[in-house]
C-alpha cells in the first residue's frame, strides 16, 4: 500500500515539478526507523521520495528558509497537519502563496520513532516492517513485534484533518484512513491543572532543569522565522541571560509561547526534537486553548483569516473590558 502511495506521490510531484525550482520531500533515513528530509532539484531524482508511517517531520520547517534561498517557486510534500503551518505562514504574509506549491498527502497517522527506539532500549535496528496493526523489527537483540497503535505521534490521537486537502495545489488521497486511537487533546493539560500552583511550579522547574538550551525547539518550528535575530541572544539590551538555569530556561520557553500565540499549529515538532524530552507542547496547547476560547480562532485552517493577534477589534466579543473610570 505504502509503495503504491509513494508511486502516486512521485507521479504527482513530476507533474508539479516544472513549476518549481526545488522540491522538499521525505527520503530514506539513516536507519530503518528514521526518514530524512530531502531537497530535489532535478526531475530524475524524484524517485528518492518516499512516504510512509515514519514521515513524522514537518517539512514546513523549511518553507520560510527555502523561500528566502530560492528565486523560483518551492514545492513541498506535506501532511495535512504540516500544511497548516504553511497556511499560517501564508496568512501572515511570510511566504507567498503562489510561490509555494503544496503537495498534500492524506495521512493514516505517523509513528514517533523515538517512542519505538526508547521501547527497544536504543538497540541497533537492522530492518523494520511497519503495518497498520504491527511493527516487525529486527534488532541486534533479536526480532520483536510491536503494536503499531502504541507508537503514534501524540498529535495523531486527536487529528481531525487527516484526509483534508488543506487548500493545497495537489491532493493525494491515502487509501488507508487515520488509525491512531482517539485521545483527548487536552488530557495532559487537564492533569497539570488539577495540581495547585506550587506543584505546577515544581513540575516546570523539574522539566526546565533538564533544558540544555540547544534551541532545537525554536529552530525546528516552522513559524519561528526570526531565529537568526532572536531576542534571547541580544547583548544590548540583555533580555535573557545565557546561563542555563531553570528560571532562565523557562523564561526562554515563555518567550516562545508568547511569540506563537495565535500562530502555533501544534505540529509537535518542538517536543519531538527536544533531546531532553521536555513536555513543551503542554504550554503551546494551553496557549492555543486560550486563543480558541477568546477569539474562536484555530491557526492554519484558513489562509484568508487574519490571525487575531495581528489585528484588533474595537470590541472583542469574548473579552470583558474593564470600565474606564
Amino acid at each position, binding site marked *: 500500500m505504502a509503495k503504491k502511495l509513494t508511486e502516486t506521490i512521485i507521479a504527482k510531484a513530476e507533474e508539479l515539478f516544472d513549476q518549481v525550482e526545488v522540491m522538499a520531500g521525505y527520503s530514506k*533515513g*539513516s*536507519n530503518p526507523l*528514521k*526518514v*530524512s*528530509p*530531502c*531537497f530535489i532539484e532535478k526531475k530524475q531524482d524524484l524517485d528518492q521520495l518516499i512516504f510512509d508511517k515514519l514521515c513524522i*517531520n514537518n517539512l514546513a*520547517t*523549511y518553507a520560510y528558509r527555502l523561500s528566502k*534561498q530560492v528565486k523560483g517557486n518551492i514545492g513541498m510534500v506535506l501532511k495535512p497537519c504540516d500544511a497548516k503551518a504553511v497556511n499560517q505562514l501564508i496568512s501572515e504574509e511570510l511566504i507567498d502563496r503562489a510561490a509555494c506549491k503544496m503537495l498534500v498527502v492524506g495521512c493514516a497517522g505517523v509513528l514517533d520513532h523515538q517512542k519505538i*527506539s*526508547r521501547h527497544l*532500549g*536504543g*538497540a*541497533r*535496528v537492522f530492518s523494520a516492517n511497519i503495518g497498520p496493526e504491527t511493527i516487525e523489527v529486527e534488532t*541486534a537483540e533479536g526480532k520483536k513485534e510491536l503494536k503499531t497503535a502504541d507508537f503514534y505521534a501524540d498529535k495523531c490521537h486527536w487529528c481531525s484533518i487527516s484526509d483534508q486537502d488543506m487548500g493545497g495545489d495537489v491532493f493525494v488521497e491515502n487509501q488507508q484512513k487515520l488509525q491512531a486511537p482517539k485521545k483527548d487533546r487536552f488530557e495532559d493539560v487537564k492533569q497539570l491543572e488539577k495540581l495547585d500552583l506550587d506543584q505546577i511550579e515544581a513540575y516546570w522547574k*523539574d522539566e526546565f532543569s*533538564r533544558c*540544555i*538550551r*540547544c*534551541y*532545537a525547539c*525554536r*529552530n*525546528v518550528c516552522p513559524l519561528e522565522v526570526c*531565529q*537568526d535575530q532572536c531576542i534571547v*541572544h541580544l*547583548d544590548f539590551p*540583555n533580555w535573557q*541571560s*545565557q*546561563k*542555563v538555569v531553570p528560571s532562565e530556561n523557562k523564561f526562554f520557553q515563555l518567550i516562545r509561547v508568547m511569540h506563537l500565540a495565535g500562530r502555533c499549529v501544534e505540529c509537535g*515538532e518542538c517536543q*519531538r*526534537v527536544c*533531546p*531532553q*524530552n*521536555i513536555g513543551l507542547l503542554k504550554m503551546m496547547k494551553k496557549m492555543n486553548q486560550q486563543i480558541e476560547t477568546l477569539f474562536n480562532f484555530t491557526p492554519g485552517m484558513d489562509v484568508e483569516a487574519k490571525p487575531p493577534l495581528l489585528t484588533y477589534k474595537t470590541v472583542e466579543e469574548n473579552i470583558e473590558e474593564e470600565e474606564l473610570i
Partner: protein
Amino acid sequence: METIYTLKKQDLKPWLESLAQDSDVYVPARDRDNSLVDFFNLSEIKDDLGFGQGQEKRYVLDLVEKTKRSPKQVMYPHWEDLLDFSYEKDPENIEDEKIKLSVSQEAPNSIIFGLKSCDCQAIAKMDAVFGQGIVKDPYYMKRRENTVLISLGCDTVFEDCFCTAVGGSPYGFDHTDLGLMEDGDHYVVFVYTKKGNALAQASNSYLAKADAKDGQDYKSRMQERGRKASEKMSSMWPKTAVEDMAEHLNKAFDASQWKKVSQQCISCGACTFVCPTCYCFDIRDDKDNRQGKRYRCWDFCTSYLYTLEASGHNPREDIQKRYKNKVNCKYNYNFQRQGHLYCVGCGRCVEVCPVDMDIRQIVAAVLKSKQP
C-alpha cells in the same frame, strides 16, 4: 600499573557511597520520569537512586545505556562565572571610577563513574584543548586535576555507535584512571594511573587484590572481550584511513556535495551540546546596574550568530559553510592541530539530530565526491 583488583557487585553501592563522602561522585542513571539516562551527582539523588531493577525509585543506576549528554559538563560546565566586577567611584574624586575585579572558582573533588571508553577518549581531547599550549585554561584545568575517571568496558553496540571507525575501541582504557570489566558477580578493576592507584588503595575495604595468576587471566579476558565488542561494530569508513581523512577533506573543500548534505540542517545546537568533544564557548556579561558577572557559556558553530561580526558581515552566512566548518573542525583542522580526530564515535549527535543528519554518511558522501 599492573595491580588488578576485584569488586563484588553487592559492594558497588557502599563503595560509591563511601567515595561520595569527600568527592562529588557522578553516576549514570536513568530518570524514570522522563526515561533519560544522564550523569547525576550521587549525593544529590542518593535517596532516590536504586541499584538494580525492581526497585521503586525515581532513578535507577544504568551501566549499559549511553548517557544522553556527555560527561564533559563535570569539568567544563554549560556555563561558569569567570569573574565578578563592579564599578566603584573614588569618594575623593567622583569623576574617577575604578573597576574592581574578583575571581572565585570552585573545583570540588570529583569522580566520574561508569564512563564509556568513547567518553574517556573525549576527555583526553578536551585536556589537549584546555591544557596544552602557551595559555592553559585555569578554570578547566583545576576541575580536571581534581577529577578521577572510572571507566566501564562497553559490550553493547547502540544504534549510532561508531567508535571503532574513528580509532577507538569499546574497551579502550588508555585515558582512564581505573578501568572496570563486568565479570559474573563482580567487577574486575584495572589500575592505570597514580590517581587511580591512590583511589584503589584508599578503597581497600571494598576492593580485593587479585593474585598474579588471576590477574593474567583477567587481563587476557579483557582483551578478548574488547576484541569481540569491536567486532560487533562495523566500520563506517572502511576505505579511508583516519590519517588520510584530513587530506581528503582538504581536497573536498569546494566539493559540490556540501550543499546537498547540509541543506536540511536547521542550525540548532543539539549535536554540539551533546558532543563530548565540542569545546567552543562565548563570553558574556550579566550586568545589574554597577556590578555584574562575566561568565562563559557553551556556543555552537551551526548558529548564524557564531561568526556574525560587529560590522554585520557574516563570513559563514549560510548553513552550508557552517556545517562544512563543523565537519572540518572535527575531522580535519583539529587533526592537523592536535594529531587526532575530534570525534570519538559516540554517535550522540546522530541520535539527537532533529532532521536525521548522520555525520558518518555525510563525511562518507563528501569524501566519495572527491575520489576518482
